[in-house]
């Protein structure tokens, strides 16, 4: 832990109200959205300006004190969990919209601006910012950049990386990098690609320029109800094969449907094993045509009921259930653990079946709610942390799900990030040479490895410690054994 001399030095460089060191006052910052993992920071700085950010980074560099950057703290992988003896640099006070440029259809904002407030600010111009993580009312755009956040409309509109055109970044070495801009191309290496999703390990984003899109004139949402989970899964592939790119394509299983119905009562068919929600947008003639295509596709995959919402009120009703899924899961079990693996779409049925077997093995129920169009699963493992061993079992169960995702040709995280949560599974997805390359990349921007250390990229030593359970690219130690 840094000493009092260091604290006095930091205080001497910043306005007193921006520095919090009292052990009770730092408590609200001890976790992010992954609340199971907590750690008190050494000190919290609530930065108000780029100059203050630079001061903090300079201080950390000089004193070799690690720094963890935090936005709104809604992240689900513990990426912004403080480190012991480290500064927690909080950017929520930097929350101004700096410019809305209607000629280039871009907005330039500070990192603490919330995701939703960008769309709200340009609503009257008929524009919106596309990525919409479910935390969009609270999460900050800087955090979205750090995690490359997604949402329910990624299939058509992409992730954060597809919608950010420019960044200003402060490196711990004291440089300001201006990456991208309002034009579409920049010469030289595409460092912006590297910064999006870098989980606070390469620098601090202090300005973000995002692309604004014209709002589509019409929107329909179709709900298809299925008796078999596999049929719903196959229907997803069927819709995509047909050449349709829905704005959103979501799936929920029976347990999730029931939880939502008890909680939000939106009128989902409780007798269904699975439902698909399919949002189509565009001009009226196109949306009508596509809706009839999707309806007949759903029926051809044995949907027993298809409901089409054509006005915004009906659409909102159907979406409300999906958006209430996480809080609804929170009502049917004291705790839940949300996973985030992504798999190729054609593997959906098979992976869901193996999750069901794992659920029996661990004796823990799972509700499945996910971005089916993207193959991005969010199994919610239900457990009770007050029951001895259940937390550990849930984590082990989650780890096994992620390894199944890697085996199926997918990835351990689609949109929540690695953070501290999935750091061990990184050893399954990448080999030592690849991890080494990540470490060399990191030191390009942070020679002393002071930025968010211990997150996102495991050390080789850590991977070799857990080597006993290591499954790399489908090469199981005994591939002939059945594993459930």
């Amino acid at each position: 832990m840094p000493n009092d001399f260091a604290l006095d030095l930091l205080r001497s460089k910043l306005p007193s109200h921006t520095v919090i060191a009292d052990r009770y006052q730092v408590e609200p910052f001890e976790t992010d959205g992954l609340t199971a993992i907590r750690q008190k920071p050494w000190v919290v700085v609530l930065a108000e300006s780029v100059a203050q950010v630079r001061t903090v980074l300079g201080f950390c560099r000089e004193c070799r004190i690690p720094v963890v950057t935090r936005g709104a703290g809604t992240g689900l992988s513990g990426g912004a969990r403080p480190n012991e003896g480290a500064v927690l640099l909080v950017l929520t006070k930097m929350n101004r919209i700096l410019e809305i440029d209607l000629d280039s259809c871009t907005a330039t904002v500070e990192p603490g601006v919330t995701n939703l407030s960008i769309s709200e600010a340009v609503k009257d111009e008929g524009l919106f910012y596309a990525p919409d993580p479910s935390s969009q009312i609270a999460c900050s755009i800087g955090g979205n950049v750090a995690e490359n956040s997604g949402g329910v409309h990624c299939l058509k509109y992409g992730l954060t990386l597809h919608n950010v055109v420019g960044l200003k970044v402060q490196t711990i070495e004291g440089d300001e990098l201006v990456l991208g801009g309002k034009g579409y191309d920049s010469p030289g290496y595409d460092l912006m690609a590297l910064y999006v999703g870098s989980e606070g390990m390469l620098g601090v984003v202090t300005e973000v320029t995002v692309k604004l899109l014209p709002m589509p004139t019409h929107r329909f949402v179709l709900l298809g109800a299925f008796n078999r989970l596999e049929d719903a899964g196959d229907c997803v592939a069927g819709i995509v094969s047909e050449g349709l790119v829905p704005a959103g394509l979501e799936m929920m299983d029976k347990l999730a449907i029931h939880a939502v119905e008890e909680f939000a009562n939106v009128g989902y068919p409780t007798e269904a094993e699975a439902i698909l929600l399919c949002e189509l947008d565009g001009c009226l003639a196109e949306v009508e045509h596509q809706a009839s295509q999707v309806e007949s596709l759903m029926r051809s995959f044995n949907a027993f009921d298809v409901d089409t919402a054509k006005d915004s009120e009906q659409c909102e009703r159907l979406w409300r259930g999906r958006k209430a899924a996480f809080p609804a899961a929170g009502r049917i079990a004291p705790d839940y653990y949300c996973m985030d693996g992504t798999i190729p779409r054609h593997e959906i049925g098979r992976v869901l079946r193996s999750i069901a077997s794992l659920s029996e093995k661990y004796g823990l129920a799972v509700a499945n709610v996910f971005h089916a169009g993207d193959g991005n699963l969010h199994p919610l493992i239900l457990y009770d942390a007050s029951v001895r061993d259940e937390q550990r079992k849930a984590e082990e169960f989650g780890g096994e799900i992620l390894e199944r995702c890697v085996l199926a040709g997918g990835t351990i995280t689609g949109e929540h990030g690695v953070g501290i949560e999935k750091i061990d599974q990184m050893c399954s997805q990448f080999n030592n040479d690849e991890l080494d390359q990540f470490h060399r990349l990191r030191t390009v921007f942070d020679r002393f490895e002071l930025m968010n250390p211990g997150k996102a990229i495991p050390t080789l030593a850590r991977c070799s410690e857990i080597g006993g359970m290591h499954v790399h690219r489908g090469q199981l130690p005994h591939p002939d054994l059945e594993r459930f």
Partner: protein
Amino acid sequence: MSDLDDSRHLQSAVEHASAGSEGISIVGHGSKPQSANAAQRSFMSTEDHRGIIEYRPDELVVTVRSGTPLAELNEVIAANGQMFAFEPPLYGGRGTIGGAIASGLSGPGRPWYGSLRESLLGVEIVNGLGQRLKFGGKVIKNVAGFDVSRLFAGSWGTLGVILSASLRLWPMPKTTQTVSRNCSDVDAFQIVSEYRRKPSTLSGTCYMDGHLHLRFSGAAPSVEADVGDGSEQTGSFSWSLLRDHALDFFEESSPLWRISLNRGAFFENADELSIVTEWGGSLVWAKTESQDPPTVRNTSHQISAFRHLPTQPSSSGKYAERLKQAFDPKGVFSSSLVL
């Protein structure tokens, strides 16, 4: 399509060069004249490393070896009604997918369909140490580890050899129509700007020789709604020649500059320039009489030498240098970024 796996040879060639600190320049099928300017280096070709590794149309993803000719690849995916949204230049059928990624060039639809790097989901590479590494994957959402694959887009073979890549595909639009009209550059800019702010099927713009060409793509009813607005005549502009930099404009031997900017540019000495503007005013191709770059007056921009000009020095800045070092500590690969 022929199916050849030359990855072992490519990897051992890099290992060999790395051990002897030799320089290598990577070429595909030599479609780009720029790749010829790396002197005193041996050339390493990906020509014998070709073929589709995995393609499932219902996944909208293709995994392909880097030496695969784009023209052949386009044929296979087009047979399934799919396309690369970034419309890479085919350069007379000689361009390869590896070359497209390394140059990072996107075609006329870039502002609406996204860039090459946005469609790039994963790569397998050999770095300058001869290590064979995989980054990213073949699913559209993937945030595990730094996004190294997208860093390879536009890296011009300076960081490593691309062995294979997974790319996102899009359904081909059902209908495409072009309208052309006579107008001034100021009017053209006005028309194009208005389109940015409203939903439409606009998928390409090109202003040259006093004509504005607009391309509309999508479902038939939507395209008809957009095209039906005015009384323009249907044009016969070739978007594929624009994409391949093969319009007569590109064929002449004057110095050619590529200028990326926020919106329509105004130039000093405009009458000495010959200009083609695409991407809704955000990309300008300018030919100059001398070897001096044109001067843009009104907006921030990035100018790159494109053809018939000496190669620019490698990307400057300490981070770019260290980045190169991180992948290629012994300097096996060429260090000049062409753009």
